[in-house]
């Protein structure tokens, strides 16, 4: 639901929990500056689930860490943007004020359950630490709360498990602990950054199911970051597709998955093997993620795009509406190019998309 009528500096309507506006996070490293997040906007309503999809390195994790204000500075720098969360711009909060928000009102689950828990503290203590910091409970009450949370995420024998160290648990179990930790202070927003990527396939389904269940039970909003379109299809209501630090397409999960408008989204969907494709060549997006030091000028996807035409190498397409504010795409195929340029795709002249898609499949080596 990006680009609803909004004025810079004005809070969004109250039903919008998180409103990210034109966010830019750059990293200044030895070899130059990496624009990891470069003008990203999206919104999450209360209780809603939004999926952020893209290849690794497209800036989706950095977006999440920026919302949490967990970007290390230096080398990171939040160059510009607004992050309205529950009526405040968190980028304007002091470090002390941010401590009251982080972990209490917004919480995060990370990709690597094996390394995300402190190896020298018991899992119970790690939850208690968060509860004591935000809930003003006694240690005893906080410990009870920790055990209650471990029960909620389906850990058997919670009182005994709470006294164990992370190394005594499996990966799936540790991710359950991470979820219990994140939910221990009743956050309004839960950010899950690739929560199932590091897990076994059978465990992945269990954890996803758990996340859906606890979200329904607690009513928290969920920002789910993943590269796995299968996970998106099962879990989220709306999708934001990111490429090279920018949002390239948004819409409801049905619209994006069934009728992708951006060639990148299309390529992502085409690269999933499915039953009906038996015997045909698996489609992949040609080329590789651009060098972050030398981002392509114009549309950042154009060097890999099978439909690239005249405006693409020189002009960056805006994220324009397709009929309604929530359905958007940033692609010259769907927007009138500026400066009087015409639609002249390089591969075939104004080919209809399905035909162009087949032609592109032929060209892939």
């Amino acid at each position, binding site marked *: 639901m990006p680009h609803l009528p909004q004025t810079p500096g004005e809070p969004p309507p109250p039903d919008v929990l998180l409103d990210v506006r034109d966010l830019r996070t750059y*990293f200044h*490293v030895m070899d*130059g500056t990496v624009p990891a997040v470069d003008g990203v906007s999206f919104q999450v309503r209360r209780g809603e689930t939004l999926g952020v999809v893209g290849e690794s390195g497209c800036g989706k994790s950095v977006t999440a860490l920026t919302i949490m204000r967990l970007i290390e500075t230096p080398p990171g720098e939040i160059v510009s943007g607004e992050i309205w969360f529950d009526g405040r711009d968190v980028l304007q909060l002091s470090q002390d004020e941010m401590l009251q928000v982080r972990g209490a009102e917004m919480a995060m689950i990370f990709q690597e359950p094996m390394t995300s828990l402190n190896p020298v503290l018991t899992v119970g203590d790690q939850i208690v630490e968060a509860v004591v910091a935000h809930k003003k409970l006694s240690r005893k009450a906080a410990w009870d709360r920790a055990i209650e949370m471990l029960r909620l995420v389906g850990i058997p024998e919670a009182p005994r498990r709470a006294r164990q160290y992370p190394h005594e648990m499996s990966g799936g179990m540790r991710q359950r602990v991470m979820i219990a930790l994140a939910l221990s202070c009743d956050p309004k927003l839960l950010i899950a950054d690739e929560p199932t990527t590091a897990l076994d396939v059978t465990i992945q389904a269990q954890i996803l199911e758990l996340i859906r269940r606890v979200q329904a039970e607690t009513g928290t909003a969920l920002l789910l970051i993943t590269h796995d379109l299968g996970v998106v299809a099962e879990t989220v209501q709306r999708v934001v597709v990111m490429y090279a630090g920018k949002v390239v397409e948004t819409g409801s999960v049905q619209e994006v998955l069934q009728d992708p408008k951006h060639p990148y989204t299309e390529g992502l969907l085409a690269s999933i093997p499915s039953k009906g494709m038996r015997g045909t060549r698996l489609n992949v997006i040609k080329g590789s993620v651009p060098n972050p030091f030398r981002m392509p000028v114009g549309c950042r996807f154009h060097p890999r795009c099978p439909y690239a035409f005249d405006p693409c190498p020189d002009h960056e397409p805006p994220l324009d509406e397709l009929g309604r504010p929530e359905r958007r795409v940033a692609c010259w195929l769907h927007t009138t190019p500026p400066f009087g340029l015409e639609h002249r795709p390089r591969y075939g002249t104004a080919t209809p998309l399905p035909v162009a898609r087949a032609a592109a499949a032929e060209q892939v080596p």
Partner: protein
Amino acid sequence: MAIPTDPALAGGLAGRAPADVATADVEVALESLGQWQLAWRRFKRHRMALVGLGFFSFMVLVAIFGPIVLPYNPLNIPGAQQPGGDPPSLQHLFGTDDTGRDVFTMVVNGARISVAVGGFSMLIAGMVGVLVGAISGYFGGWIDNVLMRIVDTFFAIPLLFVILVAARFFGEGQVSSLILIFGLLSWPLIARLVRASFLSLREADFVEAARAVGVKDARITFRHILPNAIGPVIVAMTLIMASNIVLEAFVSYLNFGISPDQTSWGNALANAQSALGLGNWWWAFFPGMAIAVTVMSINFVGDGLRDALDPRTRL
């Protein structure tokens, strides 16, 4: 690769930019350069390492040619005008000791023995260490067990205890004996490093592949594993060289090392302490500075080499 913009690295200090997705791409672009060219590029980025290399090369030149050029004989005792020795002047740049010997000449002549002891003992330590570590790491089992307990023992006995006894009882003031003693006492660190590399590389895919096509044990060791273990070993060798130069100086300072009829930096310091009370600081100061600056330049080179050769700490 670009000139470092990072302030700490530009100063050659220990700061490292955090690993980032960005650097991976650049590494890929340089892969075609070959291992040693790549290492040299990374080394050159470390400015202090270049300064260190420059100064060390200069010291080696001084050690070789200095004694030929200088007018004074370090063993000639002309007698000093003042009881503690004459202060620095145009005639004696670094002053003289209490018997009137030129300290500058001592420093220049001392470079020869000090650098030689450090350098050659480092080579001996390197050879013995690589051999022991390779045997231990490649064969494992009881051979490994016995060799590693010997290495443990070396680490348990304070090195200086043994060096003092060995230098006094077996050194006989000879440079060659001291080189041997220092070399044979400082290899265990290298052996440990080589063994550790072997343990991790023995199971590596490329070694498995070599074994699968029937390459012989010895060939696997010397052609496939050792070249990959060489980075940390070279870095450790610079550390050993630096520490052996200091140790030689201390042993000679105590009169257990090089015999008094030869000059090393340690020898030059041997009686300097007695003259401190008479206000003669130059006799102790200049030979010590020669050691400190040489050791520092070796350490800088070692740091540069670590950045250049040791893939684990790269960036």
